[in-house]
């Protein structure tokens, strides 16, 4: 028993390595993503700058000042508290806080929040942000009035009573107090809006819209300020001021895309979000050519996701890259323009594969995130992966106790209950199968014609795939009012269906195994056929019977498990195996397989003990 266990474990590790690692490689993308998600999830207390380097700083008017030292903070909304502000300032090391614009990648005019203003006000959000897109200025979000202007009315109500922004009539802003007065959710215009005019009210963040300066002052509620605040404004923006309808449609499309992106997760470099569209070489990689040409003249070159070092692995000649050794045939050679080679010391990084529309841009090397919980290397993270097709034995071992104690014993999903249920089903199946098997075997031996007539059908019964038969059988039984939810009978029947076969074959063989001389001897005693059967044939068949019962036990267990997978009774190991397979809990599936195997070994051992007790004459 111990030796078996050791052998299983010894076999388990190479198996896990042989099957696990290639799969791990194949799924490296998933692993990477997982690492990144882990990193983000674990980041909140860490304010390490994502990127410290040079950035573009501009005035509130959109005028470029200089390239200067900047810090891009963790990709998350900042909190509201003063400690955040202090930490932020410290992290930025006195540098102006860079806030970027134009998250969809076109050159932006730039927005800067002056740290002094931020701190003086005690509110990051007090910074003024102006958002431009190309030539157009973004118009913040607004709510249309409930009423339709008829050229007569002056009173309009708006859906949100707390919407306290300026009021626009046909895009023209009215001055509060002069152009309109407020009455809760209602606004009373100084003069009636023209018939069919668009009457709106600015919403949310845009407390002040300074058309002249081209800035939007943020409401204090978005205390986080910086990127998020800016993006929050963008999110509200509906169109470009003064833009044509066509431009605005394009803008709307871009806006939709933008809204899919969680701004707290966008990585920024300098004044633009990182874009890591991978460039493919113009040439095909044939394993011989070393010179590859890319569309652009800069970027990180990778071969099969391994970054190459310039000057060592390749030299650059404009858009051409000359590798020191030719890449393998059909290797994935890529260039990531605008990305930096990984260098933890200087805080630069390498980008992952290009993001699709609406996708996030991720840094492949997580060094710049908080360290992920899984570990320092990919292998460590592979070990820590919650799911894997071929887990290591010690993962399974570690999962057993939690698996069994996941649900209380009273719960039907409790693994111990499931094991017990399957045990009962197997025993019932075995009893039924053994009874039918022995009965058939006895009749076969007594009546040869019966065997000739029936045995082919017995064989045929075993060629029917049990998987195909089970639903039919369950349906038939269900019509008879016997369901697997209420009764163990279906499980027993299905188990017995495959368990009886070895019993028939073994018992027939056993009953025929009698030494002919032993039968001669009985004849010399003038024994009756009943005596011959009871005193010679049957005892002689007992060892065969027990051997076939052991086979039948294993078969009954398989039958019971299959029956349980087919049912919706939420009971038994079979159901649990199916459930865990479907939900992809690989380790739990392995535990269940282990439990099923141990159950099989245990039940067969019980049969063995019964044999030793009932047939003690066998040589031990």
């Amino acid at each position, binding site marked *: 028993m111990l030796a078996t266990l050791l052998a299983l474990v010894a076999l388990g590790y190479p198996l896990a390595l042989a099957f696990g690692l290639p799969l791990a490689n194949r799924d490296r993308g998933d692993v990477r993503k997982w690492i990144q998600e882990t990193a983000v999830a674990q980041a909140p207390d860490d304010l390490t700058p994502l990127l410290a380097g040079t950035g573009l700083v501009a005035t509130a008017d959109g005028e470029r000042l200089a390239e200067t030292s900047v810090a891009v903070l963790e990709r998350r909304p900042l909190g509201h508290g003063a400690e955040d502000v202090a930490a932020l300032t410290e992290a930025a090391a006195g540098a102006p806080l860079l806030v970027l614009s134009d998250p969809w990648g076109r050159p932006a005019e730039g927005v800067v929040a002056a740290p002094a203003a931020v701190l003086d006000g005690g509110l990051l959000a007090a910074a003024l942000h102006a958002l431009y897109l190309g030539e157009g200025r973004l118009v913040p979000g607004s709510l249309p009035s409930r009423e339709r202007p008829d050229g007569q009315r002056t009173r309009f109500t708006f859906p949100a009573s707390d919407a306290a922004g300026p009021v626009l009539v046909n895009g023209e802003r009215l001055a509060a107090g002069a152009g309109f007065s407020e009455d809760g959710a209602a606004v009373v215009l100084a003069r009636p809006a023209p018939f069919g005019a668009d009457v709106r009210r600015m919403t949310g963040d845009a407390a002040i819209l300074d058309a002249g300066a081209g800035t939007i002052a943020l409401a204090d509620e978005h205390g986080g300020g910086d990127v998020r605040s800016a993006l929050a404004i963008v999110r509200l923006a509906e169109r470009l001021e003064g833009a044509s309808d066509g431009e605005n449609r394009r803008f709307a499309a871009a806006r939709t895309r933008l809204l899919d992106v969680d701004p707290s997760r966008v990585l920024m470099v300098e004044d633009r979000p990182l874009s890591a569209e991978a460039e493919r070489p113009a040439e095909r990689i044939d394993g011989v050519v070393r010179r590859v040409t890319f569309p652009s003249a800069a970027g990180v070159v990778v071969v099969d996701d391994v970054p190459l070092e310039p000057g060592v692995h390749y030299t650059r000649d404009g858009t051409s890259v000359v590798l020191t050794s030719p890449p393998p045939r059909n290797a994935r050679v890529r260039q990531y323009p605008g990305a930096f080679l990984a260098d933890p010391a200087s805080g630069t990084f390498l980008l992952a594969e290009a993001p699709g529309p609406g996708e996030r841009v991720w840094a492949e090397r997580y060094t710049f995130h908080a360290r992920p919980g899984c570990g320092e290397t990919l292998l460590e993270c592979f070990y820590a992966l919650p799911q894997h097709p071929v887990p290591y034995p010690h993962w399974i071992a570690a999962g057993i106790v939690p698996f069994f104690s996941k649900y209380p014993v009273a719960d039907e999903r409790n693994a111990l209950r499931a094991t017990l249920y399957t045990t009962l089903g197997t025993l019932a199946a075995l009893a039924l199968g053994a009874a039918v098997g022995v009965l058939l075997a006895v009749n076969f031996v007594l009546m040869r014609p019966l065997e000739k007539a029936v045995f082919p059908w017995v064989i045929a019964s075993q060629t029917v795939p049990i998987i195909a038969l089970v639903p039919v059988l369950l349906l038939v039984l269900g019509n008879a009012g016997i369901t697997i939810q209420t009764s163990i009978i279906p499980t027993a029947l299905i188990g017995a269906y495959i368990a009886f076969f070895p019993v028939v074959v073994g018992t027939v063989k056993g009953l025929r195994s009698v*030494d002919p*001389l*032993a039968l*001669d*001897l*009985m*004849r*010399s*005693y*003038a*024994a*009756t056929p009943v*005596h011959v059967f009871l*005193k*010679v044939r049957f*005892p*002689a068949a*007992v060892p065969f019977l027990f051997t076939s019962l052991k086979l039948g036990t294993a078969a009954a267990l398989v039958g019971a498990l299959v029956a349980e997978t087919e049912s919706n009774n939420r009971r038994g190991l079979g159901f649990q195996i199916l459930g865990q397979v479907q939900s992809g809990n690989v380790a739990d599936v392995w535990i269940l397989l282990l439990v099923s195997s141990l159950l099989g070994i245990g039940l067969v051992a019980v049969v063995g003990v019964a044999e030793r007790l009932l*047939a*003690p*004459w*066998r*040589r031990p």
Partner: protein
Amino acid sequence: MEPVVGDAGTGARGVNESSAVEGVSTDGMTPVSAADVIRAHALTKIFDAAGSRTVALEDADLAVRAGEFVSLIGPSGCGKTTLLRLVADLEAPTSGELEVTGRSAADARLARAYGYVFQSPVLYDWRTVQGNVMLPLEIMGFDRAERRRRAFDLLAMVGLGDFANRYPWQLSGGMQQRVSIARALAFDPKLLLMDEPFGALDEITREALNLELLRIWAATRKTILFVTHSISEAVFLSTRIVVMTARPGKIERVIDVDLPQPRGAETREYPRFFELEREVRESLRGTH
């Protein structure tokens, strides 16, 4: 098949043709004595199987009187075992007459007139030694106390009193064969049919069991029909030796063994023992 031409001196003393076939005349007309346990006349057994026809026994005449120890000896295929099985009604004769204890062989079997010992012990694995000896008694409806008593006595007689509760596999070959003999004697049949019971045993065990068999024979006064391959065993045990020839199986000659009773280990040293051995050997040789 020439008649044996042996040494005149020994031949005259060792072979008594008339006494050997006493009770069974060559033409089958003479009535037999009431003491005959087995009486066969013109007994023939032919096996017909899938185109091959084997004459296992042809025209055998034999009479065995009560209390005799008759050995059947002959080369392989001479019909010794067939004759034994015919007597036991384990096979039916093709033709001829056969009476066992004054009845037809089938009736004799149904009357449980004989005990049969095979070359192999044929013990039932699932029964203890005692259980094996008691098996025929169970079948024949003896009560439990009687079964136990007889098994106890018989096992004591064959020297296995201490092994009553062992299983057959725990015994040596010789011990197993002694259990087999005890079992054959369990229901006290008049006739013991033994088919090379010691054939599979080594020489030492065989001689020990020969002595034991003689002792049992003397103690129980059974009539024994004994098949053997061993000349010395036949001479040592028998009162008469039936020498048989092969293909077709026939009775060649019947030799009286006039060694004194009771016999013991020293019997094997008698000059007469060697003479008889030679007698038998020459008879056998003459059959080829």
